[in-house]
């Protein structure tokens, strides 16, 4: 049973760390086109707004993934500890 607890733990860590890595990549990748758009005078202000919304959406999505991951693996932990 201990081994299953370990498997759940390593899966939780993989999803958690993977989500953080992907979130970072998505933001850094988006930074490049946004940097170009934000340098163009007339559209600079709306581009900054869209950039902020984009980053907030990415953060919210990955936070939700990590939250669900913790809830699900936490529930499995409880089931395993009672089994």
């Amino acid at each position, binding site marked *: 049973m*201990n*081994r299953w607890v*370990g498997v759940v*733990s*390593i899966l939780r860590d993989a999803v958690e760390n993977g989500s953080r890595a992907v979130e970072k*990549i998505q933001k*850094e*990748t988006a930074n490049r086109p946004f940097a170009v758009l934000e340098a163009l005078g007339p559209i600079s202000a709306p581009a900054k707004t869209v950039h902020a919304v984009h980053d907030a959406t990415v953060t919210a999505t990955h936070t939700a993934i990590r939250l669900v991951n913790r809830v699900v693996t936490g529930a499995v932990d409880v089931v395993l500890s009672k089994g």
Partner: protein
Amino acid sequence: MAARLDAALGILNGLVGDYLERTGNPLATPMVCQPREGLPNSSKAVVLIHGLMGTEEHWAFENGDDYGSLLSRDAGWAPRYLRYNTGRSIAENGVALDAVLEAMVARWEGPLDEVMLLGHSMGGLVARAACHVAGLKTSGWLPKVKRAIYVGTPHQGAPMERIGRVVSKVLKAVPDPYTQLIAQLADLRSDGIKDLGDADLRDEDRARRVASVSLKDPHHPVPLLPQLRHLLIAGSVSQTPWLAALFGDAVVPLGSATNGLLDAKILPGILHMPLAHRPEVYEAISAWSRE
């Protein structure tokens, strides 16, 4: 099924065992030293220490024998098989092995006159690290060790890990998020694997680590203990001298496995992993242990 699961855990521990240990994951393999059922005890113990990502199953011949059981049958040695988390640093495993051997000697049934260490690949370095720790602490088991055997042990490091270190550094220097991610993934390899690059036996050795394909210092700061007799066995991919010198046993170069010693035993045609379970290797061990 259980053996396959153990083998899978051995691989997982070799890859990320340091992480499993740090996070308290139950999949982290604790260090244990056990006898094999059916083999008699004696006053001479041989401790078999497997290599990276291994378990004691790596010693097994197809017919179920292994160097320990054959030494028991032929020369009355009592084998003890070590299992440990090969992803931890070699220094940490050396400290743990020192404690395990101290306990083994203290609990030995009957007199114990001699302990012989037999390590394959990383196992040889862990044995050396334990001897170093025991020498500093004056542990009780060390005076009982008169002989040590190293099979395919990278005494002067493993160039494949050093190449990996350089590749990882190059990838990190590329200012691209995807390349950075690949570099991060490459860097996930365990402390144990990283230690193999320069055969780092102590924590302070790791602090000197540099990203270079060449060995940082061919003169290892922790020499083989002079009071022991050492048998170094190396495999090689070919009988052709230049091929053997270049590729060694396909993982460990000849110069590293022989540590530059002229009396090291070189077995042409035996690759790195099979060195743990080949009759030719046993013949060399058996002949030397009778001397």
